[in-house]
């Protein structure tokens, strides 16, 4: 399995996309911290990258990689290797590639300029988001055989989780403004990994604002020790469940 992972990583590096992505992240990370006056503001700008670019790149890259290495996968399947081993190796290799790019690109400037709790949670959320969207990419690419449709599906998933979901939530908040909707809303937003990651960051950066009216709900729901545990468990589930679905499908699929 280790050999297989090594092979896939080599294959990924051949395409150079991941290297360009690393350079892009590094350029952004360094410029953000050298331009912004305070490290908290820098972390805030990084948050936008983590919530937008990292998911997009992770899901599209993973998706395209699977489609492009179809022949390779077919070849592997013809060998005496278990299908789950093949799929696991590809997934782990993709995870390593995407997260290593993030750690090199963003991790180093964060460690240098903002080596505090905020920096740490920036890194942690970035790693989680990268992993989640890689798992979603595998799921998307296994559902449809057609490449264009697969990529379309990935973009739709990304768009839904980053933009449309929040729009719906805001709409609901205003529709049901007269009802005690705090808890259901907190619950709904915790179902979206991007929202969950964002709220965890908010708790770090906008702490004083969050102590206001909604503070109680925020703190009760997300801010205490159990909140952190629940957040991490939910984010883990977002990695495991899509991947698990894709694994089952891959095992049964007629390539």
């Amino acid at each position, binding site marked *: 399995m280790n050999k297989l992972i090594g092979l896939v990583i080599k294959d990924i590096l051949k395409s150079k996309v991941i290297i360009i992505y690393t350079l892009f992240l590094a350029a952004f990370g360094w410029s953000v911290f050298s331009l912004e*006056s*305070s490290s*908290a*503001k820098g972390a*805030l700008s990084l*948050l*936008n990258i983590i*919530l*937008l670019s990292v998911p997009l790149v992770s899901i599209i890259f993973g998706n395209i990689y699977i489609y492009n290495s179809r022949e390779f996968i077919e070849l592997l399947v013809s060998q005496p290797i278990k299908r789950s081993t093949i799929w696991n190796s590809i997934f782990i290799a993709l995870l390593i590639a995407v997260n290593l790019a993030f750690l090199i690109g963003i991790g180093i400037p964060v460690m240098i300029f903002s080596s505090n709790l905020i920096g740490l949670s920036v890194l942690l959320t970035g790693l989680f988001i990268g992993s989640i969207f890689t798992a979603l990419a595998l799921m998307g690419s296994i559902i449809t055989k057609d490449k264009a449709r697969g990529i379309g599906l990935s973009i739709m998933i990304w768009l839904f989780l*980053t*933009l449309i979901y*929040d*729009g719906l*939530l*805001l709409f609901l*908040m*205003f529709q049901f*403004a007269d009802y005690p*909707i*705090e808890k259901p*809303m*907190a619950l709904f*937003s915790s179902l979206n990994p*991007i*929202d969950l990651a*964002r*709220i965890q*960051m*908010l708790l770090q950066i*906008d*702490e*004083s*604002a*969050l*102590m*206001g*009216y*909604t*503070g*109680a*709900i*925020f703190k009760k729901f997300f801010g205490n020790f159990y909140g952190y545990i629940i957040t991490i468990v939910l984010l883990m589930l977002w990695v495991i469940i899509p991947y698990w679905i894709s694994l089952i499908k891959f095992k049964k699929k007629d390539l």
Partner: protein
Amino acid sequence: MIRLLYVILLLLFISNIVQAKQIQVGSKHQYKTIKAAIDSALDGDTIFINSGMYKECPVIVDKKITMIGVDRPILDGEHKHEVVSIKADSVVFKGFRIQNSGVSSINDIGGIKVYDRRWVSIVDNVLDNNFFAIYLQYSKHCLVKDNIIKSNAHDEQNSGNGIHCWKSDSLQIIHNVIEGHRDGIYFEFVKESIVWRNIARNNIRYGLHFMFSHNDSYFTNIFENNGAGIAVMYTKHVFMANNTFINNTGDACYGLLLKDISDSYIKGNRFQGNTIAMFLEGANRNIITKNIITENGWGMKVQANCEDNQIFENNFTANTFDVATNGSLVMSYFKKNYWDKYEGYDLDKDGIGDIPYHPLSVYSYVIEQNPISMLLFRSFMVTLMDRTERLIPSITPEAFVDLTPAFKPYKYD
């Protein structure tokens, strides 16, 4: 004849000096109790109370005497009595530890209470676990200085204020530390007074709370981590300079709540880490300038019922929201403030941004109407909304604008 008059005057003077005697109190001295010493004292005498525990409260000081604690004697109220009642002018009360006053919901029991007196000095005492610590009523020209006041109040009903002044005049409250009371410093109908170099922290309600207290000045105080911050109300001509308001966080908690404050001057203060740094409600004709407003949830909430406030040359940095309001009417003026969220340019290099700045973010407006939507703050969609609104303002009031934003932060530190 005139010579004789001189002699008589001189004699009178000397006799006065001779009369002012010193009285020692303590287990090894002539007087064992403070009460006996006060009974035998005359106006102008000095009583030295040596260290030890004195449980003879209430101690009533009804002569113009100086009371000095040697090695900090302890006066204990045994959770029943008022500890010290000052009922004479010109009393000096210095160097004691006052502890465990009674608690009452009918009487305002004080650790040290001054009744309708002038020229009283309360200096260098430690007040521990009292209901009201220092209480001045109908007093004038009194000095409260260098006291350390602590309590461990749990709820507002069963706790009193640290320094409580009522219907007084010309007071000096200098360099006291107040912790764990209901309100740190409480003024009601107190005029022409000065509050200087005090620290009020961890009080369960307000660090500083005053009402109807005109023409007072507050310099170089620190108000930190109080349950509801600082609230000042119904007052004219307040001067607040060089104070620090930090970490007053919570729902309905304000760094500085200005309710019906008018014609006042708020200059050079530092607001850091508060939920709402400054909240103006019904505040008129105030000058708010040269303040540092940083790392707060809301830098300034200016309600629509405020009029003619001049807000200029302040630094707004690293706040979640710089300003917010509740209506569309804006009658206060922002100019030459530094906003770290300003994205304009300065082509003519005069230090003033060339395009006006609209500090009101549309989302702060949304949150004002629907607080739960804070849950979506900093999401991509909200960022898009904010950007659109900055380009084409349609929801936020057009008059809420800084026409001449400063391009670089002012160096006040």
